[in-house]
């Protein structure tokens, strides 16, 4: 993916959700929130044509969860399959205006499971009702937004990690600090593909979060039909440079 901080490479969204922009920050937040739910970046999946909300995806093959979900090196087959099964319309969809700020507001540190920012659409159960929308994405008429896609749909017990806020106050103040989120556009050379700036555990399926109408616009790729993301994008988790140690 190309990072796109500064200028927008996006066209004007084709299907902007019907909302009143900007009058009340609370409302905006609610709408962003509605767009944001469970996803951290990456998965793939079946498709929804966001032009009309008909689901065209085939059933996806879901492997038994092992040590990491959709780990690129060992579960690559699933990643490619789901990419294949995702419709062109979905892949090219760019209708949302989810922002990175809204994305991080749901998290306690980069990589933490986000909380559920919208009203619950079904009874307070364990599984499945979340995945009805978040496995495949697409337009939610009820929440008036495009649904972010989970990078780990094989995890069924969503509420194990994702909780809903019921109040906004704290029990006691906290002294919590965490790292800043990674900077975008970290290409090492002008025009070079940026490295992967985050951990891949449970977030190994790139197109869940970097492709499609439910993604955060700043991290959406401009070449979404290429399926082999990691031919160009490599993890960048080590801070230093190679140091040759004397072999004498």
């Amino acid at each position, binding site marked *: 993916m190309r990072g796109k901080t500064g200028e927008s490479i996006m066209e004007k969204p084709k299907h902007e959700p019907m909302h009143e922009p900007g009058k009340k920050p609370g409302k905006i937040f609610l709408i962003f929130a509605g767009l944001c739910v469970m996803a951290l970046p990456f998965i793939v999946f079946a498709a929804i044509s966001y032009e009309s909300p008909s689901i065209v995806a085939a059933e996806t093959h879901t492997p038994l*969860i092992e040590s990491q979900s959709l780990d690129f090196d060992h579960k690559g087959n699933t990643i490619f399959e789901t990419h294949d099964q995702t419709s062109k319309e979905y892949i090219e969809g760019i209708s949302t205006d989810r922002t990175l700020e809204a994305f991080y507001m749901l998290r306690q540190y980069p990589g933490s499971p986000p909380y559920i920012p919208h009203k619950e659409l079904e009874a307070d159960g364990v599984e499945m009702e979340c995945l009805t929308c978040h496995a495949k994405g697409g337009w939610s008429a009820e929440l008036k937004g495009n649904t972010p896609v989970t990078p780990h749909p094989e995890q069924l017990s969503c509420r194990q990690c994702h909780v809903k806020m019921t109040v906004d106050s704290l029990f006691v103040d906290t002294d919590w600090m965490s790292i*800043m989120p990674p900077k975008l556009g970290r290409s090492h050379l002008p025009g070079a593909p940026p490295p992967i700036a985050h951990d891949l555990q449970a977030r190994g399926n790139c197109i869940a979060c970097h492709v499609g109408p439910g993604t955060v616009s700043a991290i959406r790729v401009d070449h979404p039909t290429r399926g082999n993301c990691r031919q160009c994008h490599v993890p960048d988790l080590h801070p230093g440079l190679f140091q040759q140690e004397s072999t004498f």
Partner: protein
Amino acid sequence: MSITRRAFIKSLALNSAVAAASTLFPGIIFAGWEKTDLPSGMIDWKKTPCRFCGTGCGLLIGVSGDRAVAVKGDPNCSVNKGLCCVKGYHSVQILYGKDRIQKALIRKNGKLVEAPLKEALDLVASKMQETIEKQGKDAVSIYGSGQWSIPDGYAASKLFKGCIGTNNVEANARVCMASAVTGFFTSFGLDEPMGCYEDIDHADVFITWGNNMAEMHPVLFSRMLANRKSKGHVEIIDFATRTTRSSQASDKSILFKPQTDLAVANAICYEIIRNNWVNKDFVSKHVSFHKGKTNIGYGTQDHFKFKDKAETVDFETYKKFLEDYTPEKVEKISGVSAMDIRYLAALYGDPDKKVTSFWCMGMNQHTRGTWINNLVYNIHLLVGKISTPGNSPFSLTGQPSACGTVREVGTLTHKLPHGVVMKEAHRKMAAKIWNVPEKNIDPKPTYHTVEMFRALDRGDIRFMWIQVTNPMVTMPNLRRYRDGAKKDGRFVVVSEIYPTPTSDIADVVLPSALWIEREGFFGNSERRTQHNDQIIPMPGDTMCNTWQLIEVARRLGFEKQFPWSRETYIEDIWNEYTRFHDNPKHRMAPYKELKARAGVQWPFVDGMETKWRYNPKYDPAAKGKDFDFYGKPDNRAWIWMRPYEPAAESPDSDYPFWLNTGRVLEHWHTGSMTRRVPILHKAMPASYVEINPKDADSMGITNGSKVKIISRRGSVEMTASINGRGNPPKGMVFVPFFDENHLINEVTLDAFCPISKQVDYKKCAVKLERA
């Protein structure tokens, strides 16, 4: 090894220099966490077991400088394979509540005031000394927890039992796991499960007994769901007294009336025998039949005593006993239809199905807790579904080291690290390893937990040191024990990390280091010992609980027994402690191995872990061809005749509702840690009372209205939750106990299982009033 603050500052300075060069970050401040200069590229990932439940997930803590800043699941840990629950993912935030206790506090003129740590430790030691001189050694006590790190519990046991010579050592695991322990001892002669979490990947059927795993053991629960999804044929049956998230995710939810699990378990055995599903070969070779006393009481009176007596019987006697438990008869007692009872029996009885049973507090916090543990083992033993992959009666643990510390180190009044105080050989062994005279170790157990707090109230105990637990929220019939602890002439020391209702009543508060601020070990539900390094420095004057005990022991003159250096004491204690278990039935992994790995299961023999005990294929201590239940003198597992007996207090016309209490996903126990985690508090800010919609309707109670819950012991006002997360049946209410502002334990009853002395927090009678 301990890491000094200076070393951390040094490493931080080094990191900052690199960070400055890398300038990786945009200058945006996102809501949700504070801006910091800590760069993500500098995160170091360090392994530790999770701080919370008995599942024992492996975590990787993201460390930047001297701060813990992130968490991910440890993919190398077979317990959770890289996944956590919401508490685990946010666990590091428990370190950073603004009201962290960083200085010692001493009560002066009625108020707790900050004091130098040395002064506080001196005072603790002198007060102990004085109490022992004036009131005798059995007037001092320590009350710890299943969240004690192993060295904490070991140091406590050695100091109190070995050096001072009192058996006044108890832990909150008494009210959490004691029935599981007595269940294991009476059925198998040795504590802790024969199986392991890998059973989940082999079983065809899961039956959960009064166990809301979706919230209490979420990582294991979602592992069951993943297996069900990938295999297609796997079934999950939720057998419970209330409808929960687990019920909703299960294939079938069967509700029973409180306490009648005893009758249903017997009815399942009746059906298994009637249908000829008994594994005759297994039973004839590996099982013997026994009966114990009946009408055994409830322990609500001070000085209650009970001792069971086993009598061997034959299969025919057992079969005759079960005639009282036909499905039709039991349907009347339990409210479970005869058809559902037969269905459960058929699942256990089907020779082609591997069955795993899970349970935790529903069966353990039960006035017949030992019995119901026995009865579920009976089922598995009759059909021979035990000690093989997927066939597993599995007692889940609540706390991260209830097994590792309380059960294995033996921080209970009757226990020693190996064996019990009543046995001379065990005392001899302890005296030798502890380097104390044999006569120091008193052969008579003193007080179990409830009786210990009664003794504090009565004045038999005058000094109590409480570590890593919050009894002024969790004791049942709380008012009596809080008033007792506050009486004149009582001296209460509390080792704590945050102010709690327990530290509020303390005379001295010692500031404790928390979890990854010190080195230690936990032991989880599946016999897995897990080491954690000190990952970040201790704030302020905080001190490791083990070291607090060592400091006081030395002040009491036990330098010889507590000789270790601050650099290596955790390793030294491990090496000394594991001498107690140096046999093939319980050998523990060496320190080096534990430091390197995400936990190791015991028995650890010749470099191999033991996944399934009592089975010679997997267990080096087991002899013979198929099974060897070596814990019992007859080398057999014991089936027990245990009848249905009613609860200590059942609803009546004055108090028409059952009160059931428990936990919720977001909060750990009394919330003293998790309520300081922003997301967990925001998701679950206060306790509530779940009421069945029909009951609520008939009383004019609506969702969110205030309700007063009243028992014969006390009352508390709560917000009603109708059709909320859980739904109790008509005639029951449920209240989570985490909320120190709504103390439901003022209402609960201090009745316990006469064998295990574990309290039943799940059953007492209450009435409701609109407030």
